[in-house]
């Protein structure tokens, strides 16, 4: 436990020891802010138009649903930004250690590959949660000026974190296979995008393959969360995904030791 904690805190701290963390944080917050502004503006315009129409036809204006029109699309936007940002969090996790030779320290001290991988995974996940914090502030504004339901917000963040964990486990795996951070980043991004769009092909494939593609697609499992539903089958999907990512990371670390 002390070893996992050591790796975890070292990894988390080193994000903030380099400018990258601040750039990523700034970028994520700016993008999250722009998307938030756009969705809220769209909502404001829609409700304004609705009031005009109501006044024109002398009927009561509709109450537009903030959850449906702002929060749900906003979670999709956040999922999309995460897709682009997460590979930059995971690229250095292992590739950096290999490039600078610090793996020699890790492999010759009494600490197991499982502890190394777990510590690194948790550090990246916590950093992702930190990235999400400013967007929570944005959403808090909605509660100040309106009265949306809180539950879809909570489930939406749960979904984002689970999806992020899945992407991180995959990025970590890719980072263990190379000592070049660029390759790790591009590979991570390519794989993430592929897993995102794979569901789009489902409608053209046969029923059986279509189901499989739909199941694999990482974003399909996110939809329910954005709508305020936490379905255990989707939670299970993400947990399975993370376990596989960590398992493969472990296997590469162990096999690289053998092949050297």
């Amino acid at each position: 436990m002390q070893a996992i904690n050591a790796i975890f805190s070292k990894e988390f701290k080193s994000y903030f020891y380099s400018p990258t963390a601040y750039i990523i944080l700034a970028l994520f917050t700016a993008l999250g802010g722009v998307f938030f502004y756009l969705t809220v503006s769209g909502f404001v315009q829609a409700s304004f138009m609705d009031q005009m129409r109501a006044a024109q036809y002398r009927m009561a204006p509709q109450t537009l649903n903030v959850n449906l029109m702002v929060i749900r699309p906003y979670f999709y936007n956040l999922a999309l930004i995460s897709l682009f940002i997460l590979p930059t969090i995971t690229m250095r996790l292992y590739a950096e250690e290999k490039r600078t030779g610090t793996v020699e320290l890790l492999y010759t001290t009494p600490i197991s590959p499982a502890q190394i991988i777990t510590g690194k995974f948790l550090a990246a996940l916590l950093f992702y949660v930190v990235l999400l914090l400013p967007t929570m502030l944005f959403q808090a504004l909605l509660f100040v000026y309106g009265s949306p339901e809180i539950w879809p917000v909570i489930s939406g963040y749960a979904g984002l974190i689970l999806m992020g964990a899945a992407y991180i486990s995959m990025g970590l795996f890719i980072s263990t296979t190379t000592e070049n951070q660029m390759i790790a980043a591009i590979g991570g991004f390519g794989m993430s995008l592929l897993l995102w769009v794979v569901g789009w092909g489902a409608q053209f494939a046969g029923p059986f393959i279509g189901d499989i593609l739909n199941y694999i697609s990482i974003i399909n499992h996110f939809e329910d969360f954005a709508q305020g539903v936490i379905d255990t089958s989707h939670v299970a999907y993400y947990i399975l995904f993370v376990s596989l990512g960590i398992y493969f990371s472990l296997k590469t670390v162990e096999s690289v030791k053998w092949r050297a």
Partner: protein
Amino acid sequence: MIHVEGLTRFYGEKRAISDITFHVNKGEILGLLGPNAAGKTTTMRILTCYMPPTSGRATIGGYDIFEQSMDVRRITGYLPENPPLYTEFTVSDYLGFVAKIKGVPADRRKNAIDSVIEKTNIGDVRGRIIAKLSKGYKQRVGLAQALLNNPQIVILDEPTVGLDPKQIIEIRELIKNLRGEHTVILSSHILPEIEQTCERVVIINQGRVVAEDTPENLTARLAGGERILLTVAGDEEKWRRAAEKVEGVRGVEIVPADGGLLNIKVESERDIRTELARLTVTNDMDLLELKKETFTLEDIFLHLITKEEAA
């Protein structure tokens, strides 16, 4: 303390080391000497459990490097050729991290760190970021890392490479101070370094052990005599005739140089510097320079390798 038997390691088709066998006693400093790519680093990486051997076995402090790898790592400190530093950390943050992964309990961590900082004399930079330190300090931080948690075994891969002469002397002194308390293996491709710090030397060439002995015996065995260099002003033939009468002389080689000077190389069975000096002066010649040639690593290798091929 360390028993290595028949270690062999392949990288794909290429054989890096072959049947490496040696022993190190408790408290001893052993030098692994060899040219670049001889297999020193591979041997050390296997002993520190960084990678397994293709065949052969080794035990460290009674633990098998393969079966009880975690126990081996617990009692071993290792400084790789490139110190494994997280350069964005400060020295004390870095050592704190190493203490944690080495399993030093929280209450002893501060003492453990303070003690290696003192041993390696890096107290004045403990709050600095490692990336900003000089090569010499980085090397010492690397050494501090290896010594953390007071390991019984210390393995150092080329600890003085890339340092300036003053730093080399400091590191050498530091290593000498480990004698007795720690069992040390250190590698180098520089003979004087090994001579000054190690009690025993294992010479590796092309992945094989070619010799194992004390530095003194090695030099003596190799030399089988002395080589003396002189610069003399005088007559060539006269000097040669006088020198060949001295007991123990095996060969005289004279190369005339500018200004009537002679560069002379004498091979002999024993140290005959005083005789040569005297004969030069008694023959009315001027002695400008006289020195005993020290054998370089090159000589040792040439000697050992040619001997090996002849056998």
